[in-house]
């Protein structure tokens, strides 16, 4: 095996893994704060992609700019979905939560399918095919930009959760909802904030994916599975775990497609997933919620 090829595959995987991280931190935040597994998470990635595609198609807007519109918009949408739908199943049996978010996922996919059709669409940026060479290793510019933006937003989330009062309130609700309520924190508001942040990060990840990934209605199904794998790998509710898990999954996927078979890339990922679920469901980085 050629070391340069291995290194190149790892770099490619790392870049994509960064985007997975942004999707997964949102999922793990939602789980951590209100114990709801959001089966519709991938559809919010898809919505971010669709919005970015439309903004590019009709206004020629660059995905790097659209993300600044998509994130605040989805923050509001997420808060409303939480208030109107998800709040009704918080604390309910698992089946109710799974089925409600699953229903939401089918609904969103098919609404977009109805209006846009099943076609694969792409956003053609000027830097779509640009490559930046560092010695023998090639960095695809859109992927590198996506990686940097994703890491920046993950970093901002981390600062928000650890340094601001609002972020500390979220963590308090995640850890001890009763005590947080006694301290004057409104858990319902915090749930709205968590769901809003969670899905806006997913949609933001969708924005930065568009320059190198096709946009189509059922694209979310793929990302939601990857995000689940990452979240379980990092420990449900564990944000640093999700970031490490995402980078590891990105690299695994890339190495599998390079050295085993292109169409088996996801197989390696899913097999790791089932094995981690079965043998270490608390995640590879240890137990429970960590911020």
């Amino acid at each position, binding site marked *: 095996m050629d070391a340069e090829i291995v290194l190149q595959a790892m770099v490619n995987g790392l870049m994509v893994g960064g985007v997975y991280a942004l999707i997964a931190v949102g999922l793990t935040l939602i789980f951590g704060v209100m114990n709801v*597994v959001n089966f519709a998470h991938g559809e919010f990635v898809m919505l971010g992609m669709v919005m970015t595609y439309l903004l590019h198609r009709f206004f020629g807007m660059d995905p790097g700019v659209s993300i600044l519109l998509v994130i605040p918009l989805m923050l509001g949408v997420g808060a409303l979905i939480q208030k109107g739908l998800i709040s009704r199943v918080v604390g309910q049996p698992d089946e*109710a939560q*799974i089925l409600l978010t699953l229903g939401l996922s089918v609904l969103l996919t098919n609404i977009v399918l109805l209006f846009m059709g099943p076609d694969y669409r792409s956003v053609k940026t000027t830097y779509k095919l640009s490559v930046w060479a560092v010695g023998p290793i090639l960095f695809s510019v859109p992927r590198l930009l996506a990686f940097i933006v994703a890491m920046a937003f993950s970093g901002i989330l981390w600062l928000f959760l650890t340094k601001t009062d609002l972020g500390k309130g979220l963590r308090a609700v995640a850890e001890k909802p009763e005590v947080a309520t006694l301290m004057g924190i409104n858990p319902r508001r915090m749930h709205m904030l968590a769901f809003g942040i969670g899905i806006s990060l997913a949609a933001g990840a969708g924005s930065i994916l568009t320059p190198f990934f096709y946009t189509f209605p059922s694209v979310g199904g793929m990302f939601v599975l990857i995000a689940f794998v990452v979240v379980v790998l990092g420990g449900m509710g564990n944000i640093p775990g999700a970031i490490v898990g995402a980078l590891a999954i990105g690299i695994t996927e890339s190495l599998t497609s390079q050295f085993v078979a292109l169409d088996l890339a996801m197989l390696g990922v899913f097999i790791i997933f089932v094995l981690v*679920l079965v043998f270490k469901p608390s995640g590879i980085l240890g137990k429970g919620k960590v911020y």
Partner: protein
Amino acid sequence: MSTSPEEQFSWTRYTPWILLAIILVFPFILPSRYLLRTLVNIFFFAALGCAWNIIGGYAGQLSLGHSAFVAMGAYPTGLLLLYYNVPPWIGFIPGIVVAVVVAFLLGHLVFGLRGPYLALSTLAFGEIVRILLLHFRDQTGGSLGVTIPFRGTDAWKLQFASEQPYYYICLALLGVCLYVTYRVHSSRMGYYLQAIKENQDAAENLGINLAGSKVKALMISAALTALLGAFYVAYFYYIDPDSVAGSDLSIKILLVAIIGGVGTVWGPIVGACILVPLTEISNYLFGGGRAGASLIIYAIILIIVVLFSPRGLITLLPGGARSYRSE
């Protein structure tokens, strides 16, 4: 003068038998090809819902990857018919064996998990099967799928030009699924599964073998699902990984059971009687090409059921609530 209740003609008592008689003679009264196809679809999805219900409803172990078992029944049957001329009524056997063995292994692997973890692992299981079917394209045809040529009516190969034979075959399969579900429902195993669904820890403390009961339920469910997969290939003459092993089918199966009435014998029939005609109506209104429309309606129904009628629409029918054992 009053008559005792026994002397009155009891509609509720005879309705099921009258319905059954109508269903049995229906193809002769109204031999419309389109209507019969719709009914075959209703029987087929009701039967799939019943099979799913054994593990997903009675035992409460939500499976999001059941289409994998449909594929395990459909692929061997289809390939044996295509390459070796083995008729489907023999060719379904290997598929069932595969499904039962896989269910046994999968059950032992994942039934230690609960709630969302279990649902996620079944989702990944379904995807693994779909990816493998796509990958081994020399054997499975990959994304092009398997097409069975129709060479005129041949009862030996279960190929019929008319719709009636399929109608009765599918009705019989639904009968098998209902019978098995009813046996599970009224057996000791049914009580074990219900106890597991309500509280796994309490069930275990009562001495119920959790893993054993759940694995057994999954094996029964997988065998029936694979049997229906064999019918699928014999009836539609075409299979590909997305249609028989995709998550869309898994979700449809679960919707039939959940919308109808989860963990009841008759619930999936109610579910299929709602969902299949809805698909037909929306295909008529929006054109079959935009399959999205019917799924939008399903999703809205699912959300409404989860929020407002979590025990399914069967509870809205007269006497429907009695379908639950505890009532």
